[in-house]
């Protein structure tokens, strides 16, 4: 494709304008608001200062950030570990006849409402839920396990369940591009299966892994439905705290917390992309 520059502009303009107008501009509004002051009865008073940021850097909120990062990290790691073999099987091992079916089956649960699936987990993990009842009947436990629900455990399970398709899809796309002949060539040259995986498959799928991590980590960081429903709203996460700021009509404070969150995430992404680049250059 050797389009003229004009053609390229024409192709780029609609999406770029859409994002500038309906995404970047609103975000700019929030940035400005984060330096403003809460009006007495909600609303915003346009006097500018750093007070929101001073408050947001207090140990209390830093602890909230820490917890949310831990949740997102655990969720992402579990998603990667669970998804990689699945995507690998579908892309490289499955009978071509079943390939698409398996792929679709892996993302089909995602077509039902996230809220409802979260609620289904509540049903499974309750004190008198499916898991406890079964374990009791099998004699594995004597008393129902109460920490299954309304705990960090439940939040992680729900979060992994909700985000899994976002890991499987990009991994599949990357793995599907891996040329089986390269693997076979390596084996013919004496590499064992482990070496083939670590030295050929994994490096070739790095872009997919990074995409998957980004797609899972970010929503987990800002999650607030799962902490609310499965965590029993017992523990504060950034998402729930920001939501509470908006609901309590302290929009400037919520904006400041949001801006900080976005800045931190951007910094992490920058680091990730730098390390990815330096590895590739080696």
């Amino acid at each position, binding site marked *: *494709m050797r*389009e003229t520059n004009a053609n390229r502009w024409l*192709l*780029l303009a*609609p*999406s*770029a304008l*859409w*994002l*500038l107008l*309906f*995404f970047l501009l609103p*975000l700019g*509004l929030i940035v400005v*608001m984060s330096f403003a002051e*809460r009006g007495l*009865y*909600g609303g915003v008073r346009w006097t500018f200062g750093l007070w929101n940021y001073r408050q947001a850097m207090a140990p209390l909120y830093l*602890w909230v950030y820490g917890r949310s990062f831990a949740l997102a990290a655990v969720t992402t790691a579990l998603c990667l570990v669970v998804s990689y*073999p*699945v995507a*690998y*099987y579908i892309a490289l*091992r499955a009978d071509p006849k079943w390939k*698409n079916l398996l792929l*679709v*089956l892996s*993302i089909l*649960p995602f*077509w039902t*409402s*996230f*809220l*409802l699936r979260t609620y289904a*987990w509540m*049903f499974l993990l309750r004190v008198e839920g*499916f898991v406890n009842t079964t374990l009791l009947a099998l004699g594995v436990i004597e008393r129902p396990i*109460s920490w299954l629900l309304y705990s960090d455990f439940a939040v992680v399970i729900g979060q992994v369940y909700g985000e899994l*398709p976002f890991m499987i*899809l990009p991994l599949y*796309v990357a793995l599907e591009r891996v040329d089986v002949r390269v*693997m076979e060539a390596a*084996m013919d040259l004496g590499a064992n299966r482990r070496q083939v995986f670590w030295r050929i498959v994994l490096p070739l799928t790095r*872009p997919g892994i990074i995409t998957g991590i*980004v797609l899972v980590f970010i*929503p987990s960081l*800002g999650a607030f439905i799962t902490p609310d429903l499965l965590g*029993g709203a*017992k523990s*504060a996460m950034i998402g*729930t*705290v*920001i939501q509470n700021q*908006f*609901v*309590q*009509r302290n929009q400037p404070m919520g904006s400041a917390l*949001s801006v900080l*969150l976005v800045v931190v*995430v951007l910094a992490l992404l920058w680091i990730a992309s730098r390390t990815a680049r330096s590895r590739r250059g080696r």
Partner: protein
Amino acid sequence: MSARARTSPILAVWMGATYLFLYAPILVLAVFSFNDSRLLAVWRGFTWTWYKAALSNPPMLDALRTSLLIAALTTLIATALGTSAVLALERWRGRLRSLSETLFVLPIVVPEIVVGFASVTFFGWIGLRLGLLTVLIAHVAFSVSYVFFVVRARLATLDPRLEEAAMDLGANPWRVFWKVTLPLLAPAIAASALLVFTLSLDDYVITSFVAGAGATTLPLRIYSMIKTGITPEVNAISTLLLLVTLALMALAFRIERRGMTRTHLVLVGLLLLGLVGFAFGDSVARRPRATLNVLIWSNYISSRVVRAFEEKTGVKVNIETYDSNEALLAKLQAGVVTYDLIVPSDYMVRILIRENLLQPLDLTRLPNLRHLDPSALGLPFDPTNTYSLPYTRGITGIGYRKDKIAAPIGSWADLWEARWRERIVMLDDMREVFGAALKLLGYSLNSTDPEQLRQARDLLRRQKPLVRAYDSANFDQLLLSGEAWIAQAWDGQILKARRENPNIEFVIPREGTTLIVDNLCIPRSAERPDLAHEFINFLLDPTVAAENMNEIMYLMPNRSAWPRLRPELQRHPIFSLPPEVLRRSEYLQDLGPTTVLYDRYWTEVKLAR
């Protein structure tokens, strides 16, 4: 083909376990859509009831219709925009490329909650009315990026020499694009379209901010149902949705495998027609005289009452819900919604008046006003009833299972009782939770004294290890299922649960509690204040009010309706409230700047272990 031939058993088991993990909850959902009980918890036999109910539930079908429409349009627009952006930026080096990429990364990086709020602020600022259009705009904005990255990942792995070869063989750029690039990108485009469709169909957070009157999507509807106890109806509708999806997928595979035959073409055509017919059919078929947009707490109005009004007047009543007064205010403050009737609580009425968001009621058009109990009129938040009329009276108390708890219950201190560790549930409502602690300490629940608030916080931190969950929506379900034995609770939901299990009891703590009056108000921005007045007067009719109360189980200050109440409502604890408890009870007030302190302490309680 040695690499394909051998699959280790571990991998097979891993696949099996993952699919079990993915499908077990959905299976449970599907199975319990046939359960002959309003509760999800216990299997009581097979029934089709919930399918019948779901298929004849107009708000649910409306929501499904809205969701499908928005998801389809979002997919079309976002896929086209995203793919063309990828093509435009291909092999375009320099500043513009990296700038554009940053632009596309942002929507993925920024948490949904920020996007939602920023969008609604922006729409308010430019004065765009919230509705289907704003939902569509926001959905496209957050999904273009997903298309961009999925398609680009594919493009990055394509061999550029394929295109070059085609050019060398004399193909013009268009031909190269249609014959080489697009077919190679097709799997990624299809995958991203699938992704966008699901994202849009599923999105709750952003939609909850930008949806206005008439744009309630399925997740919004489901959320409000979960908030007040889910019914198997939702299970039924999602099982149906899943089956339809499965059928579509099956068809897509057959087409992919065997090519597009004439039968397939006809099938796809019929399906598309069916979907379009479903999405638009309703609006064409029965065009109502007018639409009245009502924004109200969930399960707070009887659907029979709504239907009766629709039949009487030929007006379509569109019911939408919110889950906190603050969410209602945020929506109205954003400025661009056009609801005709809202139901804010006492202290919120005051704020809405002060913020100039309500219009005065024309009391001459409300003859049924005379049925209202005078003691519920002229309350401090609107002394002359210029802007509001009382709809319901509520009270916060303690719900408990008397079969699990033998001891007499009657004090907020019972929610601090170590014997019931992990069986105690508190409302997930900052003001109510602090209210209970403040009352237990003997202070006002509208306290603004930092020292008193600190004491309340410490008390709540001590309570934290005993608390099973903070929940404003499902506390009745938790009591019914035995998950909780004792819960801070609002009266109506407990009385409703009691109909299913007589072991559930409701008491009002002797230290005093929160009194609640929810009110009928017309926003300044209402489009049909005439219809709103008509509807208010209809709701105040004693027969209608009695039917309404008997279903939602909250009391209304409608004296003429009281003789027609169910016996359990006639014995409502509000009627027998001891005077000294009443004296110690208060309405919530807006606390202005002190809210910030509450919020900080609330976060600290949530962070305690």
